[in-house]
């Protein structure tokens, strides 16, 4: 994408999450637990033209470098995402997301009868399986509809 098309300005320091599937940017922020109250700058570009994805979303988080384990959970909804760590306007690190073994506290279990939906003081925990995630408590498998069950 050329400079004049760039709708969101460059950041000095922080993390740029690029190549997010169109429409998933707010879910990315929800998964990362970022809601703006933390005080750092957050920019979101949605449905930006992309050669690779057709339309993509971009999320830029200033003054915060996200760790690999923090971003790996994004692989569930944005498997194509790239993570750029920026320092002084330069990309110093560029990584792809990799699928984690498990995801804790991010998703809610779709099974209404699961103990994690019964007002217990417990974080949900899902194992990542071949084509989805699986509740560690009730074994329910969640596939294409993962984004609908992000705990916000």
């Amino acid at each position: 994408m050329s400079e004049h098309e760039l709708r969101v300005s460059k950041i000095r320091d922080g993390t740029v999450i690029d190549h997010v599937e169109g429409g998933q940017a707010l879910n990315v922020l929800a998964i990362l637990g970022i809601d703006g109250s933390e005080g750092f700058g957050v920019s979101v570009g949605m449905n930006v033209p992309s050669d690779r994805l057709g339309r993509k979303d971009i999320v830029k988080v200033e003054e915060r470098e996200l760790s690999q384990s923090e971003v790996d959970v994004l692989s569930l909804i944005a498997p194509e995402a790239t993570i750029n760590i920026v320092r002084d306007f330069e990309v110093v690190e560029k990584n792809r997301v990799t699928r984690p073994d498990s995801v804790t506290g991010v998703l809610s279990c779709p099974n209404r009868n699961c103990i994690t939906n019964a007002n217990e003081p417990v974080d949900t925990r899902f194992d990542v399986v071949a084509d989805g995630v699986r509740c560690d408590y009730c074994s329910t498998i969640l596939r294409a509809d993962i984004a609908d069950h992000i705990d916000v």
Partner: protein
Amino acid sequence: MRQDHLITATQLSRDDIEAVLDRAREVADDPAAYAGRHAGRVLALCFFEPSTRTRMSFDSAAKRLGIDTIGMGDVDSSSVSKGESLSDTVRVIEGYADALVLRHPSEGAATLAAEHVSVPVVNAGDGAGQHPSQTLLDLHTIRENHGLDDLTIGIMGDLKYGRTVHSLAAALTEFDANQHFISPESLRLPRSVRFDLHETGAQVREHTDLEDVLDELDVLYVTRIQKERFPDENEYHRVAGEYQIDAETLEAASDDLTVMHPLPRVDEIAPDVDETDHATYFEQAHNGIPVRMALLDTLLENAEAAEGVEVDR
């Protein structure tokens, strides 16, 4: 079995299962050798849902080992009705008992409980999840009547919500068993159970009609189809009627067919089957005693070993 808890049947290896069943056989052969073995121990029977046979069976098994049992009484009159979480309840009860048996209406309740306590937890049924101690007594019954390998078994009825089915299907993957699942379309095995069966490469087939497979079976495991699973009563009667068996149905079966049921039955097995050589469900229920004695003995022994307690026997 080197387990601290018994939460799901999927956690059990063939060796784990055979170790408990071998011990159950010893208990059945010589109950006196086990009498009073765990005197002074206390077992908490935490039943958040009504139960007759599972609760009485654990109670009786415990007492035969010399274990005292304590219960929660009626859930409506306990702290649960005051809104206490399960996590808090089991942490309190842990201080009163050396092991917990838990029946709860929510799936995953026993997993959660086991995370909060250090005494052994036995899942005695969690919603539509698992019922692994029932599975051990089912396996014991199959083993004593037929053997667990080279087995062709039909599991029929409510496969979607039937926790005894989910546990049994998982445990049978440890053996050389062909599993046939017979149910109405709306009550097929849930995705999670089919996923596990597929992962283990188990030999599994699904049917809507018992006739398709009856003559091949060594064991027919029947479960109850519950009225509340259907939107209206007519639909229930129409569907449930297709999954009832009587002595005439079984004329097409092998003479050696073993018919099992976790009980209670309503009308899915007609009383005239009781008079045939196929009927094994009362023997199966009675097997709850030696199997649960063997299970409690094993778990308490494991807990004692973990504590470094010298056990003199």
